[in-house]
């Protein structure tokens, strides 16, 4: 293992993040605050408690997940697409490093950035609503697993994308709807039966449910199902990355 190379990639990517610090931190913090003001304070005050939790608190786990998922995907996909776009990717190919080391460096950096932003949003949430975390370790585990698995997904997206439009289209058309319909703002049990069944095909439902369980000890689906779902998603991403690694798809001609 070429750890020096992994460290180099990791810190180079993190440096980009800190260079654009305002954009990196402020944008998610401001948009989350707006969600709290609109849904938590304005509309939330007219909504009765959901599963025994005030609406403002109920949306906290979903909002964190929403941000962590979108940030993981955009960080990782951009991180690997950008060198492809400006041509510095050839430097990675000519370096004495394996594809695995490239993945660890880029995915590690993308997941770390998403985690930092997730933590900031959690911290921001305390300013707006009262809540406590029932299972802090489980919460942390969910957060770490989610950021890693969606960073892996973002990495695949960045390798696949041939232009900036393709880079945006998957998050826009697939991920955002899945996350919004994944129970960020409501409990699945609030939906009509047909939509409850349809929701069960949305992988994000399991994530948000498990994450909410870590906060409030209440969930739409059993916690073990949530863990299996995210494990399965991570496994699929790893398989795809392994395949890219073997075939050099969209990487090496």
């Amino acid at each position: 293992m070429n750890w020096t190379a992994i460290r180099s990639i990791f810190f180079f990517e993190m440096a980009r993040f800190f260079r654009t610090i305002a954009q990196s931190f402020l944008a998610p913090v401001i948009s989350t605050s707006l969600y709290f003001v609109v849904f938590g304070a304005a509309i939330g005050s007219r909504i009765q408690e959901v599963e025994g939790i005030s609406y403002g608190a109920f949306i906290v786990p979903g909002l964190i997940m929403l941000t962590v998922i979108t940030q993981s995907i955009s960080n990782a996909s951009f991180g690997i697409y950008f060198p492809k776009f400006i041509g510095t990717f050839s430097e990675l190919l000519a370096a004495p490093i394996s594809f695995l080391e490239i993945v660890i460096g880029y995915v590690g950096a993308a997941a770390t950035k998403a985690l930092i932003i997730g933590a900031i949003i959690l911290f921001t949430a305390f300013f707006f609503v009262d809540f406590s975390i029932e299972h802090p370790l489980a919460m942390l585990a969910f957060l770490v697993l989610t950021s890693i698995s969606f960073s892996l997904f973002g990495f695949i997206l960045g390798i696949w994308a041939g232009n900036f439009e393709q880079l945006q289209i998957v998050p826009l058309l697939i991920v955002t709807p899945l996350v919004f319909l994944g129970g960020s703002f409501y409990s699945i049990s609030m939906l009509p039966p047909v939509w409850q069944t349809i929701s069960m095909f949305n992988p994000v439902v399991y994530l948000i449910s498990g994450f909410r369980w870590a906060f409030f000890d209440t969930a739409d689906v059993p916690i073990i199902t949530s863990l299996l779902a995210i494990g399965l998603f991570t496994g699929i991403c790893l398989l795809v990355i392994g395949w890219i690694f073997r075939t050099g798809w969209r990487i090496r001609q």
Partner: protein
Amino acid sequence: MPNIVEIEDLKKSYKGGFEALKGVSLDIREGEILALLGPNGAGKTTLISTVCGITTATSGSVKVGGYDILSDYRAARAMIGLVPQEINLEPFERVINTVRFSRGLFGKPRDDAALEQVLRQLSLWDKKDNQIRELSGGMKRRVLIAKALSHDPRVLFLDEPTAGVDVELRKDMWEIVAGLKASGVTIILTTHYIEEAEAIADRVGVIAKGELMLVEDKDKLMARMGQKELEVQLDESLVEVPAALQSDALRLCDSKRALIYTYDTRAERTGITSLLAGVAKEGLTLRDLVTRQSSLEEIFVNLVHDGDNKPGKEDAA
């Protein structure tokens, strides 16, 4: 001199069937400067990219310092530095950071003293904290060289280092390359400028249509390419070359109204003065004088043409 790079029967076909390399074999000696001359699309960049690991060969083998580039890719690539043709740099990154990153990628521990030496050698030290976008084109090219040298490679590939560079910068680049050779680095550079090969190379390889047409010591090749023709156009037709003027270098043009004299531009005496004196002595009237030098492109075309006629050669398809 031992060989530091050994390329054997390297072939590369792209999807769609285009054959970029049709079985190239080439040994590169340690410490030399080898210039690969060839027109655009000849396969120069593909050859370099394959040795450096950016593209995968369809068949054939490459060893760098005795290490196979596939089975021992870490050891092989650690010895190589690559200066790509395109200026691929992150515009907002600082010079020192991007060079430090390159060194790290090659698994070398941070060593600011070594990087300072590289940057000073390339006159980049006072620009080390500048963002890439603030640099001129020539400076950016130097940054690419600094990145390639950051991990102390023993072999340096320069892919058209002076394409689109003005004359002064080109001279600078040649000096840099000479300096690198003096420090013991083996240098392979591609170019389509014959003067460039002439100015700095020890050996010259000519590559065209995916084939290595020849590899020769520069001096021998230059002698072949330095031939020039002088066409002495006359007012009257001749039957044959006048007896007093007869020599191997002189022949009668097909139109019979001109004499064609072949000479070496770099010879001590080209013989033009005595030729013209002889022409005057014969009482011939000059109409015009034209000199011609076969262009590099022409030489390539001839070489490729000769290659096609080689007996027993497989079809290019």
